[in-house]
């Protein structure tokens, strides 16, 4: 396995939210540990509010972690922090909503020229040549037709290509793509996914692909990390995790995908506990888990290697350690 370009070790983040003057604590990221190997695509999968975007923000330095370590290129984030410019140059981001990620008043050319000017000191015709090259990379051809357009003149898929082009402009090593296709029509999603895959193979960038869609994760990624309420519940080879999930939550995710091809196989998932949550120690999933056991109420399962090579945090697959049972 390739060396890790990005390492997250026991990262935590709690938000204090002031909603109408009331202070609430939201544990967005509890204990998150995973690696992004160089030139790999790692998918971070989880439902809404599971902390995916928060992790993206922590990695890109938009937010600061409360605890834990984020190491990029063997250098802890704390050191990078002193030179965010340099860090940003290497770690770029692709946003979820291409309509929102582009300033409606700026042309494609301006948008892409900014990182070129800021990070690579390219100006004038040099910049234009590079813009042309990058737009070709993201298949916005013929370039001339697109380069002076304003966002409203482009379709969603085209916009997302522009967003990707902008992220590519600084020659980054890692791109964090936060649900890059969820706002797009199914019919054009594939193109963007193909593009991302191509970037990895042709440009050698590593990619953290954030999604709530297990299928696209399986399609695109090498590894999948499944997140539930701020904790990693399962992690491993993409095909394994997506086809033979071990954690009840991942299983639930898989079963929930509509499957008109095999209506017979369609499980009748027990969802009566959907509205329940628990946030008082123990397994975070236990309130909704159909297999919840007594031990799940008191002990927190940690991520351990399971049978098929993937890691899973569930007492169904490995017994709790004694000291954990003793924990309150």
């Amino acid at each position, binding site marked *: 396995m390739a060396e890790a370009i990005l390492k997250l070790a026991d990262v935590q983040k709690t938000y204090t939210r002031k909603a109408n003057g009331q202070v609430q604590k939201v544990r967005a990221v509890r204990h998150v540990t995973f690696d992004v190997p160089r030139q790999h695509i790692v998918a971070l999968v989880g439902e809404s509010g599971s902390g995916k975007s928060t992790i993206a923000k922590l990695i890109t330095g938009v937010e600061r972690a409360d605890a834990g370590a984020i190491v990029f290129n063997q250098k802890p984030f704390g050191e990078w922090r002193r030179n965010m*410019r340099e860090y940003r140059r290497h770690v770029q*981001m692709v946003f979820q909503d291409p309509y929102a990620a582009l300033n409606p008043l*700026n042309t494609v050319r301006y948008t892409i020229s900014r990182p070129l000017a800021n990070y690579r000191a390219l100006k004038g015709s040099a910049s234009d040549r590079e813009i042309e090259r990058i737009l070709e990379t993201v298949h916005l051809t013929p370039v001339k037709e697109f380069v002076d357009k304003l966002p409203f003149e482009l379709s969603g898929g085209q916009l997302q290509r522009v967003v990707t082009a902008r992220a590519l402009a600084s020659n980054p090593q890692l791109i964090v793509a936060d649900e890059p296709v969820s706002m797009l029509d199914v019919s054009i999603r594939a193109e963007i996914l193909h593009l991302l895959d191509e970037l990895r193979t042709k440009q050698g960038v590593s990619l953290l692909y954030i999604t709530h869609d297990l299928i696209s994760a399986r399609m695109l990624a090498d590894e999948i990390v499944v997140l539930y309420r701020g904790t990693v519940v399962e992690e491993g080879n993409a095909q394994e995790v997506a086809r033979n999930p071990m954690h009840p939550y991942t299983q639930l995710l898989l079963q929930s995908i509509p499957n008109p091809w095999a209506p017979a196989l369609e499980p009748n998932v027990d969802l009566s506990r959907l509205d329940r949550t628990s946030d008082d120690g123990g397994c975070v999933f236990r309130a909704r888990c159909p297999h919840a056991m007594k031990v799940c109420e008191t002990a927190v399962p940690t991520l351990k290697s399971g049978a098929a090579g993937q890691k899973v945090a569930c007492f169904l697959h490995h017994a709790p350690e004694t000291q954990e049972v003793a924990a309150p």
Partner: protein
Amino acid sequence: MTSVLGVLKPFWKNKLARTGVIIVGIIVLMAIFAPLITPYSPNNSSFAPMLTPSAHHWLGTTQAGQDVYSQLIWGARQSLYVGFAAGIASTIVGLVIGLIAGYAPGIVDDVLSYLINVFLVIPGLPLMIILAAYAPVHGSLLIIFVITVTGWAWGARVLRSQVTTLRSRDYVAAARFAGDSMWRIIFREIMPNMISLVAAGFLGAAVSAILAAAGLEFLGLGDPSINSWGTMLYWAENSGALLQGQWAWLFAPGFLIAVLGTALVLINFAVDEMANPRLRKKG
């Protein structure tokens, strides 16, 4: 000229705004060509005082024997000038404070927001009157100053909240990822997207400035030797215009103020619709 037309084009499509633009245009032209379309100098006091309207003096003469019609046309200059200057000044102050408060997090925002709040609870007209009454020098600059001091806070509040929403837009974050500096972000990413709001703020401020200036001048807190609609009202009132049947003298300046204000409000409707797509009515 084409660029001017380009700016005006969206208004032209909107019926209300078109009416507004035309009216403002007429008043502006009136102000520009005042020397050509007035028979006398507004300060020429060689006529008999207090004449009622006639062929020679379409709107009569003042107590000092000046031609009311000429004063009315010339007065457009001053009213436009004060309205627009005060509108611009308070918009700029509001914009700068709103931008800084909205963009700078934490203590700076807290302090500025608090300042905005304080200025919002201070009653405007009374403060204006006090400031104007005690200024050593009276004149349009003072009125502009006073209106700015008392009027910037509304704009600042609106713009601040707009900046706070814009600031969290993805494209602003993206600009940060692209390595842009704070100032560049403010001026290239945030500001241009507030143009319609700023324009709306400006128009609103201009309308209230025109009304406020008229009010202050009416109270004699302007420079009464200046020729403006507000001072015309002041002199008309102080000379008992109505009592003497000098209807036109009192009626015309007030009416033009109302018309100019309405025209600006009409333009504001269109700008508002652009800023607030929910009000938009297609087709």
